[in-house]
């Protein structure tokens, strides 16, 4: 399993792509595979403010529901309506079209403390 190397990761299997002070967030292939067929994504409301590692969203398969945690603090600016109407996209393209929301970072230094692609990969491997 390899993960895109332009992203940062969390222990709870979220990824974030940071462009200056905006971050785009999704879950990893590993997480999507663990969940199985995704049937529903409950996205945050645009405009809400969160602290790093707050519960911000949730994602469901037929038999399980998982919380999604904010990788960084900030304000939600955009959500991806496509994953609501077509949740299967999270399974097929979790790092691309299956992104979930974007967040305006209130504390850009937080993302540096997240897991690197290599660290995330070994973390995920140890949990499979």
């Amino acid at each position, binding site marked *: 399993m390899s993960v895109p190397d332009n992203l940062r990761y969390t222990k709870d299997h979220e990824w974030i792509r940071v462009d200056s002070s905006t971050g785009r967030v999704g879950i990893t292939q590993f997480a999507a595979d663990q969940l199985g*067929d995704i049937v*529903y994504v409950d996205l945050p409301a645009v405009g809400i403010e969160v602290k790093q590692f707050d519960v911000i969203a949730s994602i469901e398969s037929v038999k399980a529901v998982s919380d999604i945690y904010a990788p960084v603090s900030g304000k939600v600016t955009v959500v991806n309506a496509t994953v609501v109407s077509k*949740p*299967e996209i999270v399974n097929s393209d979790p790092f691309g079209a299956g992104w979930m929301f974007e967040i305006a970072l209130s504390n850009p230094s937080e993302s540096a403390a997240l897991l690197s692609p290599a660290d995330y990969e070994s973390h995920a491997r140890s949990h499979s």
Partner: protein
Amino acid sequence: MTYWFDRARPRRPFSDCLPPDLLRRNSADLMSLPENDLVRHHITLSRQNLCVDSCFYPLGSCTMKYSPKASEIIVTDRGLSDAHPWQPDSEVQGILAILAELQHDLAAITGMDAFCLYPAAGAHGEFCALKTARRYFHKRGDDRRTEVLVPENAHGTNPASAAMSGLKVLVVKMNAAGRVDLADLRAKLSDRTAVLMLTNPNTLGLFETEILDVARAVHAAGGLLYYDGANLNAILGRVRPGDMGFDMVHVNLHKTFSIPHGGGGPGAGPIGVKKHLVPFLPSPFLIAGSDGSSWSWTDDCPDSIGRFHGAFGNVLNLIKGWIYLRLLGDEGIRRVSLAAVLNANYLQEKIKPLLPVPYSDGPCMHEFVASALPLKEKFGVSAMDVAKRILDEGFYAPTVYFPLLVREALMIEPTETERRETLDRFVELMKTVIQEAADNPDRLRQAPFSLPVRRVDEVRAARNPILK
């Protein structure tokens, strides 16, 4: 058209008595069918279900035993079916006597001091007991107790009931032997502990042999011990939760006490408590008259948590439970648990060569948990696939994926009402299915083939809900 009763119309139409805003504007299409066709429809539909009366139902944690037909017959008596809940107590003494006697029997069996028959299901009983416990603590000025301890392999209703009671859930780990980890329990007990919820035997079908130590630890911390009665069948008439140190219990009439499952309900989940909790039970209380032979409801229960049900609980099921206990008597009750546990052990011994039973350490109780993990790893066949293939052959499948502690779990509970021959046939079926997993895994992955429908697309149902 309306030939079920004699139809009449009021002289003044409703439109004369009520303004248009209060009257229904559009009629509703209720998909009406003539009686003949509706009967055909439901007879046809009913034949599309597997039921206990037509096949073996080894569903772990459900105790799908035979429901005596004597119960089904007697409840058609008008004196039971036509009794209105608001009739004066003097007009329903027979029913009240039944309820009082049932309360007494259940208390005797479980070693409790009083029973409350209102809860309509096990989860409802859990919720009722937790609220009763909260009121008990509140009365003692002990409002800090806001935590409920729940084992990690507990049924989902346990934490959900705790949350509904405004309590915080702490999970207690299991040890390697599949039982409550005493050290972890002790670490989590505190003066904020309200209740530890346990079932014994637990959801792995194992008797919690350290239960007296568990009870001592919980009581020493000032907490209460609650018995989830889902697995009572294993110890019926032989061990009383009250003797194990439990302060509160619920029983499932639709499991241990033979009430039919109804396709999902109605059930009944009466709760029992020890003396110190009696005043807090829901109102009204059923009390005996001074002559000892009449019964009445009283609202004179100042410490009660209040009403818990709109009427008096699922009385139809309570009556069936009363009948079952009379049919059983002392001889029957003890035979039930003996045969239930013997049947489970018989099956366990025969299934063990076929599939691992991860937490087995000697005799199991009334159920055991096997794992289809080897089939998954070797042939890509899951516990669900095994279950669907079993359904194909006219047997109901064991419970799958519970408890979560065991991967690809198959929880098997035969109950006491099954013949040895049935158990042997089930084992033969398991052998066939497991061999098929190796020889022809697709047959399992695509099962069932012989039921009214093939495997249902549950993903689609969840992604695009069509609910009406």
